[in-house]
């Protein structure tokens, strides 16, 4: 039941208000690159504060969503994806080796791309924990959305105890 309580607490305090999607930027071709422009919805989010009910008024206090930080995160992600898809000696060696072994080697070892994806997952988790969760945001790893979008979930802060 302890879990229940904590869930209750959490749910009482936060629920998803909106989601913002950062789309892909194809100006560099088919490379995975997300738009670094700070979405306007995140900016406007800072304004929407007062949610209330007849008997209760829920205060809303959230740190300003740091534009620079956000853009920095997206830029880092873009760099990581570029690294994953880079045509360098490592990828060539991997490709040739795989070809020579009739691609059986892919069954045993992890590709360079997969290794970078793991790095990206870790990075996003780190960013969420350090920067975005305190601001009531959550970044979803794009791989879970088929590398189409970076989904930013905005949580409503609400405290029952005023």
């Amino acid at each position, binding site marked *: 039941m302890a879990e229940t309580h904590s869930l209750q607490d959490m749910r*009482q305090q*936060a629920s*998803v208000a909106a*989601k913002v999607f950062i789309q892909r930027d*194809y100006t560099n*071709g*088919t490379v995975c690159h997300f738009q670094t422009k700070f979405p306007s919805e995140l900016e406007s989010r800072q304004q929407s504060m007062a949610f209330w009910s007849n008997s209760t008024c829920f205060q809303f206090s959230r740190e300003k969503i740091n534009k620079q930080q956000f853009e920095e995160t997206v830029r880092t992600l873009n760099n990581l994806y570029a690294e994953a898809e880079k045509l360098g000696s490592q990828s060539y060696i991997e490709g040739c080796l795989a070809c020579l072994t009739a691609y059986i080697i*892919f069954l045993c070892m992890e590709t360079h791309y997969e290794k970078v994806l793991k790095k990206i997952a870790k990075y996003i988790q780190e960013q969420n924990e350090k920067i975005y969760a305190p601001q009531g945001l959550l970044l979803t790893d794009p791989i879970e959305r088929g590398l189409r979008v970076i989904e930013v979930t905005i949580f409503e802060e609400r405290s029952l105890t005023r």
Partner: protein
Amino acid sequence: MHLGVSESMRECEYNQISTRSSTPMETPYKNRTPKKRKWESFPGRNKFYCNGRIMMAKQTGVFYLTLALILVTCGLFFTFDCPFLALQLTPVIPVIGGVLFLFVLGTLLRTSFSDPGVLPRANADEAADLERQIDVANGSTGYRPPPRTKEVVINGQTVKLKYCFTCKIFRPPRASHCSLCDNCVERFDHHCPWVGNCVGRRNYRFFYMFILSLSFLTIFIFSFVITHIILRSHRFGFLSALKDSPASVLEVVVCFFSVWSIVGLSGFHTYLISSNQTTNEDIKGSWSSKRGKDNYNPYSYGNIFTNCCAALCGPLPPSLIDRRGFVRSDAPQLAPPTNGITTYGATQSQQGHMLLFCSPWKQITLKAAVIKTFSPSGVRHLIQVSEIKIKAAATPLLQQHSSEPVILTTCPENGGSMPGRGPLTLGGPCASLPLGQPTPPTSIPSLGCHEAADMLPIHGHGHSHNHSHPLQEPVAHHHFLTPEEVPSPPGMLPCGSPMGHNHAMQAGFYNPASQDSLHEDSVRGLVKLSFV
């Protein structure tokens, strides 16, 4: 109902719900019935084998023909020709033949069984977001807007990105929708019936290796069978040679006809690779100079060597569709906990689970909502707001107690004196969230309106809904049915408007339907971090 519902009362309510429900409510939210893997509810027309490890197109008859031809021809070669050749010439011949054969088989199976680069369909939130952007761009006239395209400049060339109505995404450059498999595929080359799969970004190199090695194998077998017959003819005469080795005749015939097509195809694809084009682009003449003087291929690296290396030895992207992942049912949705309930339920492909995983607080919410419903002032609004959620989360209840308006959410404007206020609604946004169904359950956000009709008992309560479509079919696979179920165009926004009282927040707000429990877990974890 008040916020301050005591713990014991909550427990009571929880128990009540669980006993009334047909599903085992007491199962802790973490305990799930057998999970379904994502491939089982994949929206495309693909066939999966080995529990999602193997992925093929729907029509695989020709693939088996290809396999049979290769196996039979090689089998005959090794059985009838190789012994003679090994003795008369060199034993290296069968060895090389064997290596080639294994390579051909390996690459064929790799091409046929792997994911060609299918783009997963957009979930409801994304689709709604895109729709909104498109509507904003088009001026939202109310009727279905003309085919949607987006223009982007890539390396100086203007490329049109088309919107895929099936997958609800703007296709990335070079992607195309395969009508046979009903999927958008990245860097779509063509759908090859001979390998029983699409050829796209992830399996193009395997395909190329297959046809290249098959051409070598075909030429190899053809030449050595001819050699065999000639050598035999020298000794025993031509007719006698043919009689001694009838299989050779069959092999020659098969190889002769195959050589032209396979070698031709290899040559064609070698050209495509060296110019970094897809079959699709070549056939359409997308980058042909005939279209214009300034028309060139923006994806080409400039020289043949780099193009070849990029196509064959470049990094292999992983599959985006996570076939063997489990369908998550308890992903927190863009909704208050009540929605969470439904959402959770919604994401689950089996409706029987709708309330199964619900954590106690969700169940409490449910109960609370029920009580609230009877309050006259609350009925109408609650029905509006909670209708969708009920479908997803409360179907078992509905089935049991059709007369009971199981409304899940409560809107603050009703005085919000619902217990567990927090968990119940988003508080403020409840009423004000336009896409109303404040946080409709996962699969329902955009379907919400349309599925509202499912909740007949609710309707029966005398509340007429704008979106009462007689959709009886329960959403079994929320996870992937979303795009299929939404009648065109996704009626989320239009649906939401009449229902919600407040459209003001429409612009940036959606009722996301995240179906990812990983997401939810992170949410829980993170929320915990920030608030606990």
